[in-house]
């Protein structure tokens, strides 16, 4: 079974990669399996300077999902390039950096700094983090801001740019069009939906930041719908994500129109989620009558 996935600047041996923020910079999960098994790796967000992130608690469990408000904690783009990315060199798998910021200038700075790294293959432009006060989700909910930051990052980058869209919008197609018009090489969708859980005993939101991003199987129908809608009106490569647990889920994303998939929350439940999905995928593709990953892409459209 041919699992190859081809996206701009990325030829992947299989379409499955860990999602940003759910895999750190790879070290921990490398204890569980050989990271070379992965189609690619999307690492944790990088900002211009080190960030502490939000107060704790930062996570909560929900029905078939979880909330998180990490707040983009990371050691800053330079330290990531120097201290974190080299660890992934020995592995035979492309690395995608996740670019975040509070201002267009910060996004551009991170992008330019990442040009110096030879350890990455593409950028994921995170304009959809719901857990930071500035930047983050505004860029992801306002088409003109999204366009502006995508344009600037695309100008600054030596690498292909995948723009990660926020699902917290009235019209996802409009957002996708906005960023594709200014040259986004691909889309990553979806990021988390803004949610909240209130602790009955403490009478306050569980997450210190009050709101957090909802991920996991709970949001899968929303992810599938948005990818389907975007695929119906745009011809742009999509890395699909949102609630993938099994190879069947991954196939559902391919049918909806994703060219590759990312697995986030599932890693926490099962550190072997990615390799298990990869191992299962040939059987599942075969079971539903597909000859290859590419054969399945977009086939759920009527």
């Amino acid at each position, binding site marked *: 079974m041919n699992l190859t996935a081809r996206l701009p600047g990325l030829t992947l041996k299989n379409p499955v990669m860990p999602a940003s923020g759910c895999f750190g910079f790879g070290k921990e999960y490398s204890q569980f399996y050989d990271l070379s098994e992965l189609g690619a790796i999307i690492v944790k967000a990088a900002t211009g300077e080190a960030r502490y992130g939000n107060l704790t608690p*930062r996570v909560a469990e929900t029905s078939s999902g979880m909330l998180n408000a990490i707040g983009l904690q990371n050691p800053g783009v330079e330290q990531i390039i120097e201290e974190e990315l080299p660890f992934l060199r020995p592995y035979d798998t492309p690395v995608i950096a996740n670019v975040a910021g509070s201002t267009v200038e910060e996004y551009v700075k991170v992008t330019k700094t990442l040009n110096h790294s030879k350890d990455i293959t593409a950028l994921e432009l995170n304009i959809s983090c719901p857990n930071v006060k500035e930047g983050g989700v505004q860029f992801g909910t306002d088409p003109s801001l999204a366009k502006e930051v995508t344009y600037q990052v695309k100008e600054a980058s030596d690498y292909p740019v995948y723009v990660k869209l926020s699902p917290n919008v009235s019209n996802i197609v409009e957002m996708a069009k906005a960023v594709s018009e200014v040259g986004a090489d691909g889309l990553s969708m979806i990021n988390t939906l803004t949610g909240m859980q209130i602790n009955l005993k403490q009478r306050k939101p569980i997450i210190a930041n009050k709101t957090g991003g909802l991920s996991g199987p709970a949001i899968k129908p929303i992810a599938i719908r948005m990818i389907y809608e975007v695929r119906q009106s745009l011809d742009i490569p999509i890395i699909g994500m949102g609630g993938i647990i099994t190879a069947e889920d991954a196939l559902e994303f391919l049918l909806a129109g994703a060219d590759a998939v990312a697995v986030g929350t599932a890693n926490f439940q099962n550190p072997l989620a990615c390799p298990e999905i990869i191992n299962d995928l040939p059987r599942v593709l075969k079971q539903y009558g597909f000859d290859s990953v590419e054969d399945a892409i977009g086939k759920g459209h009527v």
Partner: protein
Amino acid sequence: MITKQLLKINSHLQIAEDTFEVVLQSSMAQVLKPGQFVHIALPNHMLRRPVSVAAVDAHAETFTIIFKIFGEGTRQLGKYKAGDSLDVILPCGSYYPIDQLEMNQALIVGGGIGVPPLYYLAKSLKDKGVKVTSILGFQSKDQIFYEEKFQQIGDTYIATNDGSYGTKGFVTDIIDEMEPTFDYFFSCGPTPMLKAVSSKLDGRNGYISLEERMGCGVGTCYACVVPLKEDPSKSKKICKDGPVFSANEVILT
């Protein structure tokens, strides 16, 4: 080497009100050190549950966990039976570095579900020839467990919030009363207790073990950070750098 294992439950006993002792069979049992925890998956729950190692039987290749029913997950865990299996990540986190410490006397201060890891610690200290004094706090008499086991290791004092057993009040009340002598203290329990203990024993050498809501439990998600005293803009991860920290290393909030 951290792994995910499917472990058989050898025994599953209720040992106090809402409190269960579960013995699990694992080829990794003997690598588990006092202070470390295991991360347990539960069907139909997105996140695993961290639970401390309360004892290890290296010979039988088993280890013990003790947990109290707190919410949905621990309630579910309470319904398992001997013979069932649990999906567990282990070993997780740091441990009390007792092999590197010179000491004759240790003070152990535990509260509620902070008591289980201290039992494994106390036993390991005793095996090394350290004299152990234990001060344990519980909400009430019905919730007390392992008192005898602690007594077998060394002097043990119990406080209950409601005074239904031992000293009425908090572990710090017992510390005030008995002014224990020790080289190192080791504490685990709810954060308010840890704060009270650390400030009372300020300047003394000791180790504390922290709790926080976790995502991954292995260090990838940054859910469980705690700020550092020397630079509060920096942090460590409780699941990986902790749960055991030197008493003056981190800021308790």
